[in-house]
């Protein structure tokens, strides 16, 4: 048994957690911004898939990975704008529109991918991002190779968390976002445009979801497959609740989920082969459900979540 544990808790384990957490962190922060403004974005799963595809295609055609990231972010922002158009400008049901955006984006991703790359026996791949060691920091034992010898996008995620907290809690725009998510009428009567603020937050959220997608096809897998997102978007929605709509807690939730996922992967690869691997695959999701059951009890959603704002209505 101790051999199994040794195999699991290698240096690479910590690195794996960080890598798994990165797209989740982007996606969770994106969903959090949207929900803090009062807009649930169930389009997240599809937006991640379409961005992952678009970014991969742009990178593969141009040979420029950063161009790929830019395209993924823009596509994410665009789909965010589409969701905001339906839910914020037109005030339609956030659930229905979100699922619509996911179905539409996924369908579009499959369609365009086939159109561009055709049917190939081996999916085309690209030469993805390489880890960039940070001088000095990467020499720290254990932590160094795991955290400071990573993809640039990982560093970006690490910076994104405090940045998101700063924006949300310290800037006037962040205060507007929180206010339109709590009481849009209060924001409106204080001269803040509820519609514009919600649009901005949902678009920013979409852009972050795009980054998550970009990470999957350009750093983690270096190829696009139809299962590349495989529920990470839905997980992010749960993690936002788990993280109580707070950037720090949400990032923590992403790390915790990544820990269970990494553990599960190691257990599959280790000597516990007599247990079917599907059982391990379930672990992170069981963890999410259990954690949600406990945490969501005292989690309080933004008061105006799901509620469209129409000024002349009372």
């Amino acid at each position, binding site marked *: 048994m101790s051999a199994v544990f040794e195999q699991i808790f290698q240096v690479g384990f910590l690195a794996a957690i960080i890598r798994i957490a990165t797209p989740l962190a982007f996606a969770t922060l994106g969903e959090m911004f949207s929900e803090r403004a009062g807009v649930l974005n169930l389009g997240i799963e599809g937006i991640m898939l379409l961005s992952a595809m678009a970014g991969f295609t742009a990178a593969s055609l141009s040979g420029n990975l950063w161009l790929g990231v830019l395209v993924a972010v823009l596509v994410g922002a665009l789909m965010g704008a589409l969701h905001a158009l339906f839910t914020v400008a037109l005030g339609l049901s956030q659930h229905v529109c979100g699922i619509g955006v996911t179905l539409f984006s996924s369908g579009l991703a499959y369609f365009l991918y086939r159109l561009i790359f055709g049917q190939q026996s081996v999916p085309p791949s690209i030469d993805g991002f390489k880890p960039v060691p940070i001088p000095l920091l990467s020499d720290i034992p254990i932590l160094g190779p795991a955290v400071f010898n990573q993809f640039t996008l990982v560093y970006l995620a690490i910076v994104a968390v405090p940045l998101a907290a700063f924006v949300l809690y*310290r*800037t*006037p725009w*962040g*205060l*507007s976002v*929180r*206010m339109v998510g*709590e*009481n849009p*009428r*209060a*924001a*409106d*009567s*204080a*001269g*803040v*445009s509820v519609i514009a603020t919600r649009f901005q937050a949902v678009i920013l959220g979409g852009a972050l979801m795009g980054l998550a997608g970009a990470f999957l096809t350009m750093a983690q897998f270096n190829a696009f497959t139809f299962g590349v997102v495989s529920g990470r978007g839905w997980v992010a929605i749960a993690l936002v609740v788990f993280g109580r709509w707070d950037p720090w807690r949400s990032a923590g939730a992403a790390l915790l989920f990544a820990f269970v996922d990494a553990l599960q992967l190691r257990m599959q690869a280790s000597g516990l082969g007599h247990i079917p691997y599907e059982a391990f695959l379930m672990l992170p999701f069981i963890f999410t459900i259990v954690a949600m059951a406990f945490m969501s009890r005292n989690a*309080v959603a933004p*008061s105006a979540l799901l509620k469209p704002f129409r*000024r*002349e*209505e*009372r």
Partner: protein
Amino acid sequence: MSAPLIEMRGITKIFGAVKANEAVDLSVAPGEILGLLGENGAGKTTLMNVLFGAYAPDAGEILVEGRPVAIHNSADALAAGIGMVHQHFHLAPRLTVLENLLIGIPGKSGRIDRAGGLARLQEIGHQHGLSLDPNLPVSALSVGEQQRLEIIKALFRGAKLLILDEPTAVLAPSEVDGLFAALRSMAAQGLGIIFISHKLNEVRALTHRCVVLRHGKVAGRVDHPASTTSAEMAKLMCGHEIVPPTREASTPGAAVLTLDGISTSGHAGTPLRDVSLFVRAGEILGIAGVSGNGQRALADVISGMLPPKAGTMTIAGKTVTQFSPRELQALGLGRIPEDRMTTGLVTNLPLADSMVLPRIGTESFSRKGLLNPTAIRAFAEEQIKAYDIRCPGPMVRAGALSGGNLQKALLARELAFDPKVLIVSQPTRGLDIGAARFIHEKFLAMRAKGCGIIVIGEDLEELLMLSDRIAVMYEGRIAGTLPSADATVARLGLMMTGAVQTGEAA
């Protein structure tokens, strides 16, 4: 005279079929407190929402210091120096006082300007004697403090005109004095104030001039409110004299509802402790008391929502202690709850649905397990006409009605089925005199028809006028019961503080 601070000319606002405002002219000078009066639904809130940019008027113009301005949203209004304290506060309860103040204020080098905000808050505190702890979440503030925050918020944005929509409706009498002192100080410093109320004694005490609205139009103007009688103003508001209804002498019949030794537990608020009371056919029993002394539990026990821990309840001699609300209703119990919006009706459903809600499964409104929309609509339409409920129609969202009209709808819904016992809480809270009078008359008419009515209230004058007997509640007990002929405001007031116990039942 110099140009007024604010002038509204020919303002018209139409909601569907309702002309909420029609060609209204109004002006306020610096340092002036203008009273805006009118019955519920007269269009006061609508007019002020037009001024504040929340509603776009269908006609008319607004002038600020003599210059026409276009006010398309609240940002424009704030920029023009107009601030508004809404009837339902516009605050985010989970954010702090300071955050609620700083919303929409540009930051300093990209950040929220906390230091600037705190300084300004202190300055306003000194100027008008309004202070608050900036770091408390709004949810920790009392209603009065939340109102203070709304006033500070308007001043914070440099308001030259402050609109207050029924500010005293939510305040305890002691808090009203503080509010008036602050408003007078602001007016003395040159602010214009528009004060909405339908409490005429307040209007007479505070305002310099009044505009009275009726059915959306200016029904009259009062230049010297202090020397005008309440009766004259009431006549302007309602279009006719308001005569207090008379309670004719009657001999009550047998007890229709009795509570015997009722105690409760596990309820939000004060539980009941050994409460015994009865009400007879053709009798009105008033329940006086400072709210929070068990009135909620009493109403809930009687309407079947809170099963008592001990004691018995009977209706017309039949023991009904553990009956469900529906069973009680079938026995002829009617109920008008304290909070129209949360327990009274469903604000997001059509008014007609809410009006039949307690009897939705009965034969009157359903057939073979399916709703009968024609009957529901017809019933609602009939009641809307009979009770003069002002609304665009039976299919309007219930939440869109004003408080007075909602109360009429609730009353109509219960009275249409000739209850034997009626329990009502705070029946006229927030209503204007006309609407309150209407409701009082209905109660007295029900009394004449032999209904036993329990009225729970805080307004002693109202209870004295309506009731045959008055019971006083204190800390979950009945502190005493008096025939209303023996009761005075002073005596009841003493009993409400628990100082004395008098009456037939201790």
